[in-house]
């Protein structure tokens, strides 16, 4: 139990996906300034990350390794992710119509979100050996991503009112804010790493 807690804490805070692995930077920088849609985006990504993290773990453990097909790893992983995203898209469209319209183009783009493929690869490279560990890592990785983009959306609202020198408006100032956030998250590193 304690090791699961540590894995979760490490994935969400100490090695935050956005601020220390740089995965999912595109939505992080391009995210809208509205807190609720940032949160919705984060929730969708977390969902896809958890499902595909678990599925690819099972696929790797019970199909690719026994059959000696590790060479197909990347192709198989991207297939699973594309399938999961399609499934989530249909589900959201059917049951959460306003959320679906709010997401717009972002939903299909989750397929090419590095955080999703990244979590599948990291589960494998950290050699977790139970499904519970893989699921915990994937879920809290998503929580960390959500945390980062929600903080960013909140901060961007304030940046809009700040008097930023003209060449630094837009992306450069967002990157500076990300740097400060990343420093803050680096403070968690003292809590141990897994």
């Amino acid at each position: 139990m304690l090791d699961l807690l540590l894995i979760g804490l490490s994935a969400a805070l100490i090695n935050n996906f956005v601020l220390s692995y740089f995965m999912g930077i595109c939505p992080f920088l391009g995210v809208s300034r509205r807190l609720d849609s940032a949160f919705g985006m984060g929730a969708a990504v977390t969902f896809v990350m958890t499902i595909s993290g678990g599925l690819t773990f099972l696929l790797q453990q019970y199909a690719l390794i026994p059959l000696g097909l590790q060479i197909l790893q990347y192709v198989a992983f991207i297939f699973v992710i594309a399938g999961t995203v399609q499934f989530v898209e249909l589900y959201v469209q059917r049951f959460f119509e306003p959320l679906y319209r709010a997401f717009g183009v972002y939903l299909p783009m989750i397929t090419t979100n590095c955080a999703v493929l990244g979590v599948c690869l990291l589960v494998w490279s950290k050699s977790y050996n139970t499904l519970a560990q893989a699921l915990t890592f994937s879920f809290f990785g998503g929580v960390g991503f959500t945390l980062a983009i929600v903080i960013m959306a909140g901060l961007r609202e304030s940046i809009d009112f700040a008097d930023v020198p003209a060449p630094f408006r837009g992306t450069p100032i967002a990157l500076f804010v990300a740097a400060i956030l990343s420093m803050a998250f680096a403070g968690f590193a003292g809590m141990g790493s897994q």
Partner: protein
Amino acid sequence: MSSLHGLPEARARFVRGWFTENPTYVQLLGMCPTLAVTSTLPAAVTMAVATGVVLLCSNIITSLISRQLQPHLRILVYTLTIATFVTIVDRLLAAFAPAMSRQLGPYVPLIIVNCIIISRAEACASRQNLGTAVADALGQSGGFLLGLSSLGIVRELLGSGSLWGLPVLPENYPGMLIFVLPAGAFLTLGSLSGALNAIRMREKGTQ
């Protein structure tokens, strides 16, 4: 840029990829490897070359098969093509440069989801002939190489006082750890793109 319109399409695309449509500073694509692997110059260059090889191969295949593709299946086919070439590059890297392959870690397979490659397949290679697609891939890869190595140079120089592993700054230079840490990646890219914006604005002002 009006002088470029007279050039043939392929050549114009090649030049545009390096500068006016630079993937890192202008299009802001492929940020994940840009920030993650640029703490040293060799890693940055290896990453840019690996991405360039995949981009070139995928542009060639996309340009050749695009007419046979069902429109709704095209993204899936692009992604699988890219994933195949990334597997090849990843195995080659693991065989011939194992230390570098370990250092880059999951960022080599993450080339699959690099937006530059899929956006070039969609925006250029699927509509152009082979020659233009190749020129476009070379131009974009060159631009990506410029972007990554500029970050790598600044971060390695300020972070550890060396370039390509060779010490450049005096020995008592302490090395600013922050430029090696993740925060330094954001800081460097923010400063460089802000500086480029400033130069561009000044040029516009004097014209």
